């Protein structure tokens, strides 16, 4: 089953009367239940692609055929509501839901799963950056989208928190069978997480690579190393 088919997607920005192409004819197929990472330099169009997929920006041309009615995005920053507690932030999308006990059970489940139960009554200003991003994950999981887009969600974290959350992501992904498109400029991260890696450069898909190493992946293994060299050589060509 396809979660998403993107055909010849283009996006142009008008900068002082000059047309600048951010995406130039992207073709992509995303399978349901797959973890796809999109890797590229800053300015290669990664963020634009995600923002178009979740409707925050309009495309200039091309087609997006979606089998995923509920799409949501996790941003680079946690973007929590500072006036709500951790628990209230997690359930932010569920407040209007009719089945309150069910909504509450969902929030509790993810509070436990993400190790946030102790901090349920804390405000965002009282928790660390890694913790806040965890809450943002939980908030999106509670919303239960068919397709989760992630825009460098671990980019602002230190190496320790980053690895921990990467492992959590794999854990959640395996447990819940979510379709994820994860954008990053970190080649190692793209290989560590993705079942498919899409290499993006200057608004074009340069290559799609399937990764069939089992989780958790060894960053020091030969396969990992070869893949990294291959991706770097693709992006570094000018």
């Amino acid at each position, binding site marked *: 089953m396809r979660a998403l088919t993107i055909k010849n997607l283009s996006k142009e920005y008008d900068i002082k009367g000059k047309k600048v192409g951010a995406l130039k004819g992207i073709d992509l197929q995303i399978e349901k239940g797959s973890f796809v990472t999109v890797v590229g330099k800053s300015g290669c169009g990664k963020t634009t692609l995600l923002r178009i997929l*979740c409707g925050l920006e309009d495309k200039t041309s091309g087609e997006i055929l979606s089998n995923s009615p509920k799409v*949501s995005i996790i941003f680079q920053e946690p*973007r929590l509501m500072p*006036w*709500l507690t951790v628990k209230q932030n997690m359930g932010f999308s569920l407040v209007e839901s009719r089945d309150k006990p069910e909504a509450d059970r969902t929030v509790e489940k993810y509070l436990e799963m993400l190790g946030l139960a102790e901090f349920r009554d804390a*405000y*965002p*200003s009282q928790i660390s950056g890694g913790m806040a991003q965890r809450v943002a994950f939980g908030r999106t999981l509670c919303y239960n989208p068919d397709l989760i887009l992630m825009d460098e969600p671990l980019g602002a974290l230190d190496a320790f928190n980053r690895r921990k959350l990467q492992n959590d992501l794999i854990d959640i992904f395996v447990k819940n069978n979510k379709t994820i498109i994860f954008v990053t400029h970190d080649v190692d991260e793209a290989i560590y997480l993705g079942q498919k890696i899409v290499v993006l450069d200057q608004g074009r898909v340069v290559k799609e690579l399937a990764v069939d190493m089992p989780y958790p992946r060894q960053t020091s293994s030969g396969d990992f190393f070869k893949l990294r060299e291959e991706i770097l050589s693709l992006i570094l060509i000018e």
Partner: protein
Amino acid sequence: MKKYKGIVIPLVILVAWWITTGLNLVNAYLLPSPRRIFETFMYLLGNGLLIKNLAISLYRVFAGFLISVIIAIPLAVLVALNRKAYDYLEPLLEFIRHIPPIATIPLLILWMGIGEAPKISIIILATFFPVFLNTISGIVNSDVKLEEVGFVFNFSKAEILTRIIFPQALPSILVGLQLGLGYSWRSLIGAELIAASAGIGYMIIEAEQLSRPDIIIVGILAIGLMGYAVDSFFLKITNKFIKWDREKSDYAGIDH
């Protein structure tokens, strides 16, 4: 500890006052002794005059404040959400903003007589702008990044407004209310000094005509204490609503 520090200077002033009046260093008619002030205070409390006048002033402040808020907040929301409306209103508002409400008292008396209407109108004029402008700035400065969160969770425009924009604007709106409350006291006393037959401002001006500086001083102290009490009460209530905002910054209120 912080609490006690604030008492030091008033205490020093009180002692200095006591000594200068006790040693007859100043004319007792110009500056009555603290003891005399206390006696007058007890007397005015006993015959109910102080309470009556304070109650009337308080009533005017709250009536005017309430009417003003009911007009200012919805209007500000409308204007903040329609930038075009603001273009029409901005020059006019900027013009009116610079007119001290007290300057309009003669006109208001001419139009409405010396009943309650001109006093409450003065308060409405004084309170309107801080509430209106702070509400607008709270809404206009709402973080687009947080609004996007609502968008990706498929919120309607109304939901984004009530669940993301309003809570964000709340601290700013409350600052406006607090400022407005302070302004309303000042302008009310001004109005009562000019034309009134009751209220704390009236009590003061009548005392001047009766040559009773002790009553004037009791009136002044009562205004200060009342303002302080109302403001503290207001802060206490509002802090509950915006605990998240007040916890990150040591907020103490803004005033000009």
